[in-house]
């Protein structure tokens, strides 16, 4: 980034009500903040696989968070329990699903064993499995992402 780029940035944000902007790329960082009174630093947690722009403070003292998810047609299926993850009903059985499998909402796609009991993992959406994030037989904790799903384009 050169100074001319910075100038462009300045022009870009001049007429918006963005008050703070931070950008980082390849070890370069740039940050702007406009003087709009009570501008605070909000602790921000970023979503995986999403690009976020946060605009905090809009003059009325409240904060507004605008999340622009660039790749919003991805969805994570997360574990709702603690246990051992299995992609197939038994060691010698074929898996419920594979990467690439198209699934329906409500379809059983895996099981999690907890306290000697098998519980079904059911998809909460229709789509295509892009990635299985946990290895067969490994442990999962609450909230752990286990599948990445590509949502159907029209839904």
């Amino acid at each position: 980034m050169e100074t001319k780029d910075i100038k462009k940035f300045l022009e870009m944000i001049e007429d918006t009500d963005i008050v703070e902007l931070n950008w980082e790329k390849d070890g370069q960082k740039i940050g702007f903040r406009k003087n709009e009174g009570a501008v605070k630093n909000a602790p921000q947690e970023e979503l995986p696989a999403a690009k976020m722009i946060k605009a905090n403070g809009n003059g009325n003292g409240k904060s507004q968070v605008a999340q622009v998810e660039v790749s919003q047609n991805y969805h994570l299926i997360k574990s709702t329990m603690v246990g051992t993850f299995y992609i197939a009903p038994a060691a010698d059985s074929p898996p419920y699903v594979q990467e690439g499998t198209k699934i329906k909402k409500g379809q059983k796609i895996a099981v999690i064993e907890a306290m000697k009991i098998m519980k079904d993992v059911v998809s909460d959406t229709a789509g295509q499995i892009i990635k299985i994030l946990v290895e067969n037989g490994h442990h999962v904790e609450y909230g752990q992402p286990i599948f990445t799903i590509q949502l159907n384009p029209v839904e």
Partner: protein
Amino acid sequence: MFKKILIANRGEIALRIIRACKEMGIRTVAVHSEEDRESLHVEVADESVCIGPAQSSESYLNIPNIISAAEITGADAIHPGYGFLSENSYFAEVCESCNIKFIGPSKEAILKMGDKVQARAIMDKAGVPIIPGSEGVISTVEEALKLIKKVKYPVIVKAAGGGGGKGMRIVQNEEALKNAILTAQNEAKRAFGNPEVYIEKYVEEPRHIEFQIMADVKGDVVYLPERDCSIQRRYQKLLEESPSTFVSEKLRKKMGKAACRAAKAVKYVTVGTVEFLVDKQSHYYFMEMNTRIQVEHPVSELVTGIDLVKEQIRLAAGECLAIDQSDIEIKGQAIECRINAEDSEKDFIPSPGKITRFLVPGGPGVRVDTHIYTGYTITPYYDSMVAKILTYGHDRNEATIRMQRALSEFVIEGVKTTIPFHLRILDNQHFKKGEVYTNFIQKRIIEEVAKQ
């Protein structure tokens, strides 16, 4: 001994247990809600497992997820801490059926002590004094009069189905009795849909005095010198100390032995606390038994030198008591103040928020158990206690002054805390004289402030 303990709790007590485990060479597993991902107990434990969302009912009370976390991490024991599942006999039972040791007494002991009516009967049989009263419901003035002949005035009429002061009437003499019973019945009916009342001796201006006991599988039980927890607000302890200014060596022995009988009556194992009400004539009455480690356990650790959490783990693992009653000596005085994130100026409403500055007091005779730090955010989901601060001194005066000094250098910015309220307690003339009863906060602090 256990190889790996899962701590089914959060906050300072989770840290306290992890510290004991580390000193014993036992590996630790922290469980946590999504909200507590950045908590200190998660950072300090060897392993951690997220067990649910912020709400306790879905995380710290989620038995399947906790048991499952123990199974996938290979923990051979679970320490429940206090609160949450610590006095849940079903949880103790599930642990047992999964071959995971529950660090606490048997499920039977938890059940017996958890049922107030049953506990009362067991204590009575074991020769532990209970508050005299009706064995069941009182329906008529005649029944009441018959009972009062034995227990003497004043008595208290209580709703069988209730609590929280409703359907409750203190009666000083016969003239007031009939009306009190009728009013209580009416109130009870309106409040709880059940007009049944019972009658107990009313203990006037009692102290809350409790005895820590330790018991092993062989059935040996010892008691530690008493803790005085009379300083309470709405049945919540605020400040605890050991020894009590009120308890003589003779009374200590009598009550301590009664506490041991209470424990033996339910075949108690590990550590527990028998709580008594004590009146001005040194009559003491069994109130309840806490079948777990308590918030205020460090008070006893400071005056006896015993590490209660290490002992609890040892005893749960089936080891025997390493000491007997004669080895337990009391030296000096210890005081604990519970620091809550509450606004004591505004009826103690919780004050969640981010800690912007946090300075822990140090120097001689000061112990702080806390899970918060600069940058930590206190959420509204859990208990408002954020730190326990303890001081030790040669005598009560030194411990008190040291507490004043320590509190004065304790900096917690970003939220309101009960530090100023504790300073007011410590500066109170009645407190200094040791005149503390369970109505101390109401009578000596809140009403005094209201007068000003």
